[in-house]
């Protein structure tokens, strides 16, 4: 852990103490190389300190800190999971109406003998890819492609895994012209009728309707440092305080972290990440996601389809239900 010198902690403000030790280690290493002094014991000591520093820093992250981890440029994205986690992946392009949205990838996947349809936001690894993927902000054709492939999955009896990682559906002129709201709405509605198991995982950013557009499932899982929110902390801060600087306060208020969302009944399970976040050790993060997917795929495949659909309906229909809070249709009839 934390052996990488690939700039894994670059940028995150709260990682300053970690960066300090990393820099010191790099300094000593170059000193050792140039002077041939044996300072390996000092370096080892620093490595141990680094490890405990990462642990202590990450044991006490604010909601906003977590948002910055979720957006970390080195954080594993869909293409990494496709390469590292799947045994086979065959991309199926296009919505067959308008285009092939690169911000949302769909295709046939297999993993440890389980076959499924993958529907996932794509953010890209480098600048060129990020631009190609529109930074993970899909257009209507992306959501329509997703629905088309999900219907195919239902026809073929393949379960569906969605990986959610988007700041939000794209708010642009073309997106509005082609019916961004309608495309998302059709997906949310349609996913209640897809008669195969659906597992949704928020792997990074779960940005509002753009996330929910592939977010209706029998299980909703969330990586430890992912977030899921109705509005970005920046947007919320701009509205509440007319001040983007207060995003950390907004992140806190929005209760957008995995533990809060589990207690509100919105998320079913948190997928643990390595100490220091997925960007510090992608292999462990991948293994952790894979374990959760295999386990949930196996559990869901044992459930009869009618029961599966009924349970999916109930899961979302009963959100916000606290004992005795809401009346029923029968109460309306009585009044």
């Amino acid at each position, binding site marked *: 852990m934390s052996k990488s010198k690939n700039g894994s902690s670059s940028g995150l403000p709260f990682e300053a103490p970690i960066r300090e030790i990393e820099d010191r280690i790099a300094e000593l290493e170059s000193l050792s190389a140039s002077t041939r002094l044996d300072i390996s014991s000092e370096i080892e000591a620093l490595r141990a300190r680094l490890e405990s520093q990462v642990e202590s820093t990450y044991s006490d992250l604010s909601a906003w800190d977590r948002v910055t981890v979720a957006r970390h440029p080195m954080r594993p994205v869909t293409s990494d999971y496709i390469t590292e986690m799947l045994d086979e992946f065959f991309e199926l392009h296009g919505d067959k109406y308008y285009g092939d949205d690169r911000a949302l990838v769909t295709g046939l996947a297999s993993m440890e003998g389980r076959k499924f349809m993958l529907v996932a936001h794509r953010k890209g690894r480098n600048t060129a890819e990020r631009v190609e993927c529109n930074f993970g902000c899909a257009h209507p054709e992306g959501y329509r492609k997703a629905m088309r492939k999900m219907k195919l999955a239902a026809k073929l009896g393949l379960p569906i895994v969605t990986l959610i990682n988007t700041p939000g559906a794209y708010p642009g002129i073309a997106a509005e012209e082609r019916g961004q*709201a309608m495309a998302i709405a059709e997906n949310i509605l349609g996913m209640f*009728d897809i008669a195969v198991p659906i597992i949704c995982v928020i792997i990074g950013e779960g940005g*509002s309707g753009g996330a929910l557009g592939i977010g209706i499932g029998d299980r909703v899982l969330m990586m430890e440092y992912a977030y899921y929110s*109705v*509005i*970005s902390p920046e947007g919320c801060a701009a509205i509440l305080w*007319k001040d983007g600087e207060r995003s950390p306060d907004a992140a806190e208020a929005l209760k957008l972290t995995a533990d809060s969302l589990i207690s509100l009944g919105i998320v079913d399970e948190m997928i643990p990440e390595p100490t220091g976040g997925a960007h510090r050790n992608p292999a462990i993060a991948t293994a952790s996601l894979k374990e959760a997917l295999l386990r949930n795929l196996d559990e869901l495949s044992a459930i009869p389809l009618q029961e599966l659909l009924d349970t999916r309906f109930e899961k979302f229909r009963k*959100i916000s239900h606290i004992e005795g809070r809401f009346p029923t249709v029968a109460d309306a009839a009585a009044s």
Partner: protein
Amino acid sequence: MTSEKTQIKTVAPESAPKRENQGEVEPLRVPPLDLSPDPADQDDPSEPSMSKNKSDDNQSRSEPSPDQVEDGGEKRGRLSRLRFSKKRDMPGGLWLRCESCSKTIYRKDLDDKVRVCPACSFHFTLPGKQRVASILDEGTWKESFGNIEALDRLEFVENAAYCDKIDRAVKRTGQKEAFLVGTGRVEGREIVLGVLDFSFMGGSMGEVVGEKISLAIEIAEERNLPVVLFTSSGGARMHEGALSLMQMAKTSASLARFNKRGGFSICVMTHPTTGGVTASFASVCDIILAEPGALIGFAGPRVIATTIKQELPPGFQRAEFLIQKGMLDAIVPRNEMRRRIASLVDFGQGARAAAKAKRELI
């Protein structure tokens, strides 16, 4: 969603092309920034209004008044400043100024025309109870679930802030939440009617609104009635965080089940309908209507203009724009709405039998 607020440059109006085409609308001078039903306006949207332009009037099939045809630069300049006015139209006053044509109107005349400007047919946002009265036969409205109240489950910001907002909205509107649901008759036909009311926290959808929409659909299912939903909303209610996002899922779940059982749903999007409401139940009803000039979209104009850093096209996100893009079934003026709903209800009578027959196929 992207949302940092930045200054957007004013665009000169000189090159505004005059077109005969009905669907073409006159360019606004600036992107209609202030028309965004931003959740900030959810606080006190006592008189949400909008600017609009000549083509909206043409679309609404009413007599355009002379001063609209002669559209002076002064008027256009004024249009550019229009916004959801909080103070311009004081509730107590006898007179008010039309946001669109700037004529001074006698309030009673406006109310007699169900808040459609007597001079220019501008469709003012209609408070929920007035909407109910405008659609249903007199004395037939039976409201249900009027007592469900919002909870501040996230203890949103300094604990009391969201509660205070709710309290103010309750006092101002005399209702407990932003959604009214009940049954009533439209020219004798019984329907379930739901109205999302912009005057209560910008018609934002939180837990209670979501629950009541689902209940509306379920009453319709149980009693074999069509459900008619009117929307005016800035979207999901930010103060309830992801719980409000989940109401998009909840309402859609109910609608999906309703559809399978042969339910018939009509949504009328009125000014303004954006965000999580447009991106969920409102856009997937069987028939989607809009009132003339209504702002309808996923993202608000301000967010879009900020994101793309350029002027928005003329008439962007108005009902007339959406129908051109194929997103609406029809635009129906307010004074024809009751008749149209009644007729549509008649067309939908066979829905349940058709669903039953379909289940028996294959």
